[in-house]
Structures are given as structure tokens and as C-alpha cells.
């Protein structure tokens, strides 16, 4: 049973996410080609490469540094997903502050603040076929686990399941935000790539046996 996430663990999580993103980038790009403008894959690759560079320069001892590296990388990437992910990860880093290790309440607070930032800046709500459909359930799961005093690893597993389930529902939704609105019904049956990448992020925490 793991109760906190130190610098090394945070970095391992982030690296696992970058690896998973890289592995699935073609499939994700393909989703955007079917239900968007097709640049999600290119954008994601740019972010992943930039994140690896920033991570190398960061303070390996601080959890905040790992999330801040993701934030910097995504904020330096084009498209709609880049800045929104960037602000999401930024809230994670801010929540971690200068703590050498973060506990579940801290992580949950950061994720909730991150999802709030995405919703505020992007204007999307659950059910509009965006990354929010994966982010919000994950945040809710973490917050509930934190309230219940649950262990961190179990909470992350809950969050991953919730994010994946939320991502899967997007295939049944009609886009009301972003470029997917332009293709309308042609996008029905297609999972939202931004939501799928969120699922990858939380699954990376679990796969990495935190």
C-alpha cells in the first residue's frame, strides 16, 4: 500500500505516460483525423518530445517538477489540446508545491483544480465529447477516495478506470466543442482522442505500480 508519491515516483509516472502516448500516437492521431482536423498526433508528438527535454533539466527530487515539465511542454504546443493539458498539469504541479512527496488529498486537489481550469478555459462540460469526459470522472474518483481516506494506489486505479470509462462514452456522443463540431455526425462512433489520452495518463500511474 502506497500512501505518497515522491519525486522519483512522480517522474516514473510521467515517463510511463510519455511512453504510452508515444506508443498510441498513431491511433490517437487517426481518431482526430476521423473526428477533428487530424493534427492531434503531431501535437502530441511535439509535446512528448518537449517534455522529455524539460524533464531532463528538472529537479528529480520534487514531484512538482515532473508535472511542471508536462505543463511547460504542453503549453508550448499548438492545437486546443496542448494549452488545456498544459493548464491541467500546471495545477498538479502547483498543488504539489515544494513538497518532497505528495499524498492523495494533495493529488486529488490538484487534479480537481486542473479539471476546473480546463473547463473554465475551454468552456466545455461533461457530455460534449472532449477531454473533460475523461478528466472529470477521474477527478471525482480521486476526490471521493481522498474523502474516504483510501490509499493512494487504489485511488489511482479507480481514477484510471473512471477516465477510461468516460473516454469510451465519447464514442456515443456528438461533439459540441472544438473542431469535431465541424464534422458533425461523421464523428459518431469515434472516441475523442483528447479523452483517450487522459485515460492513458491515469492508466500510466497504475501500470507503473505506484
Amino acid at each position, binding site marked *: 500500500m502506497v500512501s505518497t508519491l515522491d519525486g522519483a515516483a512522480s517522474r516514473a509516472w510521467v515517463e510511463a505516460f510519455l511512453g504510452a502516448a508515444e506508443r498510441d500516437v498513431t491511433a490517437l492521431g487517426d481518431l482526430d483525423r476521423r473526428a477533428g482536423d487530424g493534427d492531434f498526433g503531431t501535437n502530441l508528438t511535439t509535446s512528448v518530445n518537449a517534455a522529455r527535454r524539460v524533464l531532463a533539466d528538472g529537479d528529480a527530487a520534487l514531484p512538482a517538477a515532473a508535472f511542471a515539465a508536462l505543463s*511547460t511542454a504542453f*503549453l*508550448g*504546443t*499548438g*492545437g*486546443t489540446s*496542448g*494549452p*488545456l493539458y*498544459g*493548464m491541467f498539469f500546471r495545477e498538479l504541479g502547483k498543488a504539489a508545491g515544494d513538497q518532497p512527496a505528495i499524498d492523495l488529498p494533495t493529488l486529488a486537489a490538484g487534479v480537481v483544480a486542473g479539471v476546473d481550469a480546463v473547463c473554465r*478555459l*475551454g468552456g466545455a462540460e461533461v457530455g460534449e465529447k472532449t477531454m473533460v469526459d475523461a478528466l472529470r470522472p477521474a477527478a471525482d474518483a480521486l476526490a471521493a477516495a481522498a474523502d474516504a481516506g483510501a490509499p493512494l494506489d487504489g485511488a489511482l486505479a479507480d481514477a484510471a478506470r473512471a477516465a477510461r470509462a468516460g473516454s469510451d462514452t465519447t464514442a456515443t456522443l456528438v461533439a459540441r466543442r472544438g473542431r469535431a463540431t465541424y464534422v458533425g455526425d461523421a464523428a459518431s462512433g469515434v472516441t475523442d482522442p483528447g479523452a483517450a489520452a487522459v485515460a492513458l495518463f491515469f492508466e500510466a500511474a497504475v501500470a507503473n505500480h505506484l
Partner: protein
Amino acid sequence: MRRQFVNDPQDHVREALGGFERANAHLVRWDREGNFVARATPAAAPKVGLLAGGGSGHEPLHAGFVGTGMLDVAVPGAIYSSPTAAQFEAATRAVDTGAGVLHILKNYTGDKLNAGIAAELVADDGIAVERVLVADDLATDSDDPRAPGRRGTAAVIAVEKIVGAAAERGASLAELAELGQRVADGSRTLALALSSCAHPGEGHPSFELADDEVEFGVGIHGERGIEKRPFAPADDLARQLVEPVADALELKSGEQVLVIVNGLGATHGLELHVVFAEVARRMDARGVTVARSLVGPYLTALDMAGVSVTLIRVDDAMLELWDAPARTSVLSW
């Protein structure tokens, strides 16, 4: 087939920025790290920093308007794509002298999102940011409150010039935001294309037109317009652009306008001046004074053949600011 002078299409904008910086080293510097184009010599006295940013492919906009009397910094995205939040952030920090920074944006979701994020990021360090949103494209006017609003096009140039002069004279961030928004709100534009544009390295334009039709109500990204109309003589086409614009602004006899007849890329100067002549005659017919005008390729859509007509309602105070000195690579007087 369309062909362009291009090496690696992915690197086109950066290569061009390198060339632009070198050709205009007395006026601008291209910060490669932050990826923005700032004045070679930053404003001496503390003044509000003026920033404009957006996708590339519209040159000379915005980098061509960096210099004394206009912008402090331009933020170029990839072709037809928003600059990143990191670019907006770095550029905003670079030109803040303590008096705050004005973001002059054309109304596109990505630009607003990324510039808005940058504003939040710099707010953490006490840098004040205000925004002027230019949304002049009449083709995208809509009553639907959920619609994204009119696109921003060539009126942004007038905002940059007028606000630029006021900033040089020490106007506050709030004053500049108010002035700029007033200029923007008194502006409308309509454009039409005789042929669409191709991206560097691409052989075909984004859409094809029959020989007897024009694409009416186009934007500046090679997207289709609102409808096809018959090809017609220049004066006829000019009227189809200028009359709805004048109507939308409810221009009255005795009012003054700035006119921008803008080439979208491949349209020749002779043609632009023929169109301008008719636009000016239409203003005469309404008793509206053409106080000042710009005729040329100022905001392009790559190699699109077409023209946009912008009218900007101005008062004497705005005209006085328009006439104030500017030293940029494009506008200089």
C-alpha cells in the same frame, strides 16, 4: 499545379522569420527561444506593451507592424494555427515595462485560449494584461449566441496603428484597451476570392472554383466562404463587398472612415487600386468621407487571389493617432 519557394514545409515559418529578422535588423529581432518578433530597440520610456499574435501565412501581418508607433511584439504561430501559450507568455513578459501589456487578437478560439492562458500565467507575477478582440468579418455575423462570433481580419491593422500611437504617448492599459476595442467595434470587413490558397509544399489550393464563379465571404485561412456568386467586373464585385459593410456599420452622411482594400496574396496592385477606386466612389455616393486608406497586401492568406474591403469608422482623435509617426517595415510615416 501550385508550387512555392520552400525547403522543409515544417520549417517554412522559422526560415522566413530568420530572413525577415536579417532583412530588418534595424527594426526587429526574432527571439528564437521565445519565438516572438520584438522591436530591435525596446521602447525607451516605460509604456504599455502592445502585442499582436496569430497564425502565420498572413504576412506582412503582424511582424511587419513591429516598430515605433505600432507593436512592441508580434507572436507568430504555425501557418494558420495559433501561437502557443508559451509563446504568448514569453512575448508578454518580454515587453512588459511595468505598465502592463495589451493583447491585440483576432477572434479565433485558439488565439484567445492561448493568449488567455498566457495572461493567467503572467498574472502570477503581477503583469497586467488587457485584450482587444477584433471581430470584423461580416461574413460570419450571426444572431446565434452560441456561435463563435465574427472572425477577425484586416481591421486589426487599424487597431495596431491607432493604439500604437496612443501607447507611444503614454496612455494607460485601460485607456488603450477601451480605444482599441472602440476602433475594432466600428469596423467591418467582407472578402471574396477568385482562387483559393495552397500551403507551402502543397500542389493544390484548398478549394477549386468554376470559371464563372467567385467565393464570397471567405476568411483568411483558405476555408470556403458563405456562398458562390457569379464572376463579374471589378466595380460590381467591389460594390458587393463594400455596400453590406457600409450598411452593417450604419454609416451616415458626414461620417469619416478609414478604408483598407487588402490583397489576399496573389492579387496585383493594379487590381487592388481599381477596386479601391470603386469603393471610394461608393463612399462619395453616401456622403461618407474616405479620410485615410491603405491599398495593398497587408493581411494575406498565402497565395489566395482575392480582396477584402474593410471600413473603419473613425473620429478626429483616431485620425490624429493614425497620422502620428510610425516606423515599421510595412507602415512608416
